[in-house]
């Protein structure tokens, strides 16, 4: 398949974009990566994602697909040779999807807040995240059934949804000095994180934590400089 048949609009710091890239790698799909500067947003981005104007956008032929979880499922269904990303059993699929919703709607928004609130406001957020991570540790036990990933032997949907946020999770830990993944409390997830980052589909495209940290600092500085929006 021609490389320019598949394009991915993205930006290197985005964990959502990373999800799409990992999925494409799992399926050995060749694609053209178009780095978006986001300020200003390109014509292509505005045209292909008029609803949200956000990355990632996967463009397959002339068809745009938006929203990272939708993109990952699309990749799984459009390229059927190569390993499956969603599990085959409907019950397992529902479990992966349930936790994926939990992560994107509950856990990650709280983690992101941690990066922007004042130090004294962090404790209640950390408590929420700690409770959540215990649930995820339990979920991992049930989903993995003793294997390396939520998806079993290989990376699956929930691995991608969760794993692609590991860089930002580590940035949160560095900025706050508080541990989210902990040998004592979440030993399985600590091991899983290592396995995920070392996987061939992930290694080489997962941004380095130091680079993300620098990016976060630049963003925070810009936010402080910018006049308050009314």
């Amino acid at each position, binding site marked *: 398949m021609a490389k320019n048949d598949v394009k991915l609009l993205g930006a290197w710091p985005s964990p959502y974009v990373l999800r799409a890239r990992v999925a494409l790698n799992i399926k050995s799909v060749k694609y053209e990566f178009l780095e978006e500067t986001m300020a200003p947003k390109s014509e292509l981005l505005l045209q292909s994602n008029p609803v949200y104007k956000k990355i990632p956008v996967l463009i397959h032929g002339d068809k745009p697909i938006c929203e990272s979880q939708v993109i990952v499922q699309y990749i799984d269904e459009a390229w059927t040779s190569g390993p499956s990303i969603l599990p085959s059993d409907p019950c397992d699929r529902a479990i992966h999807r*349930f936790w994926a919703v939990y992560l994107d709607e509950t856990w990650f928004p709280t983690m992101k807040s941690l990066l922007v609130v004042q130090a004294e406001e962090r404790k209640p957020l950390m408590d929420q995240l700690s409770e959540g991570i215990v649930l995820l540790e339990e979920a991992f036990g049930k989903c993995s059934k003793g294997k390396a990933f939520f998806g079993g032997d290989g990376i699956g949907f929930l691995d991608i949804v969760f794993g692609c946020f590991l860089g930002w999770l580590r940035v949160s830990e560095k900025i706050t000095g508080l541990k989210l993944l902990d040998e004592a409390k979440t030993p399985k997830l600590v091991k899983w994180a290592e396995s995920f980052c070392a996987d061939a589909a992930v290694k080489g495209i997962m941004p380095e934590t130091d680079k993300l940290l620098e990016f976060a600092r630049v963003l925070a500085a810009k936010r402080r400089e910018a006049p308050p929006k009314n």
Partner: protein
Amino acid sequence: MAEEILLFGAWGSPFSRRVEMALKLKGIEYKYIEEDITNKSPSLLKYNPVHKKIPVLVHNGKPVAESLVILEYIDETWKDSPILSKDPYERANARFWAKFIDEKCLSAIFKACWGEEKEHEKAVEEASELLQFLENELKEKRYFGGETVGLLDIAANIIGYWLGVFEEASGAELLTREKFPKLCNWANEFVSVSAIKENLPPRDKLIAYLRNRFGVGTTSK
């Protein structure tokens, strides 16, 4: 093996009704348990400990939560009368718009109906922009799913029925025939489908509940 299908729901909830609509479309028998969300049952807390919310589908003892996740589970488990296309792009499209409805539309509609008065005009404008996306997505199709009701139609039950009820309860005007002719036609078609019609909460009861809970709205007629 005898199948046991339980659904924990709430009569007025569009999320809960989505699941009933899908089960009905596929001719699946189930046992319905009405939950009082002010006094949640131990079963609900057991089956959805993370969110403690309805709907929860319990299939042979295994719980599934989150209405859109449940819809996909139903479609994958009972293959008759599919609600999702086999085509990956069409599936992606349905999922995208279903998420759009839940993430953006509901809160915007709510704000337009029961938000602060000084924000009312802006709220109506924002909700209208979102409805316009759905109007455009419908194109010339009878249903979002094409010739038959699909996952996106079911997810859009909020637009197809609840929106009209919100409008009547609050006095707000959003889904006008003038601005959204296709969506209005679709809404009529949608609520006429028997599997859907049988699963709509009674209008008067819902209006009374909404007014009681949220007040009479920013624009009283």
